[in-house]
């Protein structure tokens, strides 16, 4: 049996990325009992994984993480929330451990994940997400001297290319599906955001020598047992590049599964919140990417607003509204710049797998008229990832709408489903 414990918090923060960290710090400043739970072994989320990778990011991350460690927040790392057995109670587990976390107020800072689109060969080992390859390198994957093509869409591609190059990788090409004109407009618009200009400038220096192709995307990944080469399209011309890794991701989608399960209304794919970042559920707040993909600066502001809101400091929260407004415009800019072109809908061939958990090919999935029918009849989306990979893909490919979410929101041990909900908790975390 897993070791079992309970803990009670005034404010529970779910997600230890920038938004969650900022929320926990501000909430703790009011004297509330605050807990922060994250499934990774240390805080930072994705963008600050391993304490962040470069320049300004790095010092921001260090500062915030330092504050987090000093402000009395209970850190619950390595624990994955999987279920809500009763109102205001969440269950989390790790390898040999299950705990019940009850809260008065909950702040969801579940972040985002990469969007993957299927194309021939995308399931070969060493074809990874852009963030995926970066995460692997940060976790020890040797990359020095290895040849990498980075493809897909979004500012993440440039950030990843820059990071990998610093680790000694040979970035042969960056393929961005957005047009050169859109990128140029984006670059000019960045001037409105002083925080971003510095980051962009640093980035530009790092990747000056890496060829960047716009209106460009991968057509086919080649290889027998592992990835060996990629054919990319650039303004109609094809080019096949031999390399060791393909880092490919098409911008980001918000992690709205847990908010959905908890009853928060989702609007246009994002968690609906008011100005004080309260969701449609009274004691649940949401901050960061799930309210709109807007990057680390917006996440930090929203995290602070949520932390202040959840502890009743509405005046202090309101002081941050103007900055949030401005950064929300940046989020809209991101959306416009990196929206996916329709050519990408023709990438998969009939045999290309759409659901990797259940090995369901494109030809079988497209026979159906909606996500629900496809799921029921082909089992696409019924594997362990529960549609996190194939869901956004089919939403783009077929314009399908997502279905409801079922517990557990992540796979959990059967025995941990059997822990009964508790009415009144007074126990301490063991």
């Amino acid at each position, binding site marked *: *049996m897993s070791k079992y414990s309970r803990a009670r918090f005034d404010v529970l923060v779910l997600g230890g990325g920038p938004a969650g960290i900022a929320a926990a710090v501000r909430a703790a400043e009011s004297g509330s009992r605050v807990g922060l739970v994250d499934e990774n072994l240390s805080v930072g989320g994705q963008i600050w994984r391993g304490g962040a990778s470069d320049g300004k990011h790095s010092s921001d991350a260090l500062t915030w993480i330092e504050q987090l460690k000093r402000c009395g927040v209970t850190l619950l790392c390595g624990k994955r929330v999987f279920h809500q*057995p*009763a109102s205001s109670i969440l269950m989390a587990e790790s390898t040999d451990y299950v705990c019940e976390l009850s809260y008065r107020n909950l702040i969801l800072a579940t972040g985002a994940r990469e969007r993957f689109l299927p194309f021939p060969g995308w399931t070969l080992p060493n074809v990874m997400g852009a963030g995926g390859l970066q995460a692997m390198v940060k976790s020890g994957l040797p990359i020095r001297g290895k040849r990498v093509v980075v493809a897909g869409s979004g500012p993440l591609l440039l950030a990843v290319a820059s990071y990998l190059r610093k680790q000694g990788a040979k970035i042969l090409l960056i393929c961005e599906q957005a047009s050169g004109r859109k990128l140029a407009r984006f670059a000019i618009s960045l001037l409105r955001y002083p925080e971003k200009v510095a980051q962009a400038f640093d980035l530009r220096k790092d990747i000056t020598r890496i060829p960047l192709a716009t209106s460009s995307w991968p057509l086919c990944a080649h290889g027998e047992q592992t990835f060996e080469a990629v054919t990319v399209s650039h303004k109609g011309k094809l080019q096949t590049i031999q390399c060791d890794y393909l880092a490919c991701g098409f911008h980001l989608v918000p992690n709205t599964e847990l908010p959905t399960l908890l009853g928060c209304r989702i609007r246009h794919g994002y968690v609906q919140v008011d100005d004080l970042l309260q969701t449609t559920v009274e004691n649940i707040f949401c901050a960061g990417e799930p309210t709109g993909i807007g990057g680390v600066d917006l996440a930090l502001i929203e995290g602070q607003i949520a932390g202040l809101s959840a502890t009743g400091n509405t005046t202090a929260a309101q002081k941050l509204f103007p900055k949030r407004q401005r950064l929300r415009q940046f989020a809209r800019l991101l959306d416009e710049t990196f929206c996916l072109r329709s050519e990408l809908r023709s990438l998969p061939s009939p045999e290309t797998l759409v659901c990797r958990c259940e090995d369901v090919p494109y030809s079988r999935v497209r026979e159906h008229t*909606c996500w*629900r*029918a496809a799921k*029921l*009849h*082909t089992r696409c989306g*019924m*594997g*362990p990832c*529960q549609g996190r990979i194939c869901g956004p893909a089919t939403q783009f490919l077929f314009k399908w709408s997502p279905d409801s979410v*079922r*517990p*557990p929101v992540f*796979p*959990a*041990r*059967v*025995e941990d*489903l*059997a*822990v*009964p*909900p508790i009415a009144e908790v007074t126990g301490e975390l063991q």
Partner: protein
Amino acid sequence: MTKDTYDIVIVGAGIVGAACADAFAGRGLRVVVVDRDVVGSGATAAGMGHIVVMDDSDAQFALTHYSQRLWQELHMELPPDVEYEQSGTIWVAADEEEMAEVLRKREYYQKRGVAVEVLNAGQLKQAEPNLRNGLLGGLLVPDDAVLYPPCAARFLMARAQQRGARLRLGASATQISERRVRFNDGQEIAAGIVVNAAGANAAELNPAIDVKKRKGHLVITDRYPGFLRHQLVELGYLKSAHSVSRDSVAFNVQPRRTGQILIGSSRQYGAEHKEVDQVMLASMVRRAQKYMPALGKMSAVRVWTGFRAATPDKLPLIGPCPGFESVFLATGHEGLGITTSLATAAILVDQVTGSKPEIAVEPYLPSRMAKEHVHAQ
């Protein structure tokens, strides 16, 4: 408002509706099937997909046995995604009382030509090594099978369509009257016969019939090939299915062809909402772990609920709907919808076309509800 004319309109594209469509179309009748969702989306999507002979009553036996035979005759034509597997069932006995039930069942089945084998404790452990020690034995019914119901419904519906049946999805039926079904978008369908195969929602369209929702929970695990070979059911299952007033759980697990394990089962009364009920879920999982401790450490990928269509006497309603000339019922199958879908379709078509059914249909006639005074046990 458009009107179409068919011989048969079937409300409900679940396994029962699809089987009926296939059977009617096979007799050359013009059929249209309607459903507000997709094919096989109600209890058909939520249930376990067990094809099992049951002996709660002679009538239940007759229907399940007949239908199981029809599945066996059909199984070679089923496509791979239906995942038909003759895994067999083992009814598991944990105490002397249940072992006595094993022997009673054996006698009952043997008399009626159903292949069965009594397993002692050692044989049970050999057949299913992951069952806990200390169980007394069980009854193996090797001809029982499992399949994946949504794809079975889809196959039957597709075959019906090949034979000329039409399918209309997305509109919700709001009213059934003589030779007519009305929908929420204002459309109507006219047909010589209307069949209510709307499962747990059947009483929405025919308020006078006694079909109530009986909620169930299921858990599915990740793949563990070889862990489980047969569908396992505890004999206490019957004790709980007997009760018509108490919520209950029972040990019931099924191996999928994928190697995933389906863990059930639960029954709840008066629960109308779809959300997972934590108390029921916890209770069901603990019961399953009592029989197969190793389940505890397995990865649970998904939990869901569904609504069975339950009648007071545990037999389905197959035949003319009281108070109507042209409306028939094919509903109330509780946990045996998959098993009895084919036989339901057969005897319904027989009744409509005036052919002689293979089994006596009186026990399933909806008119019995008015005549009999059925006691809840």
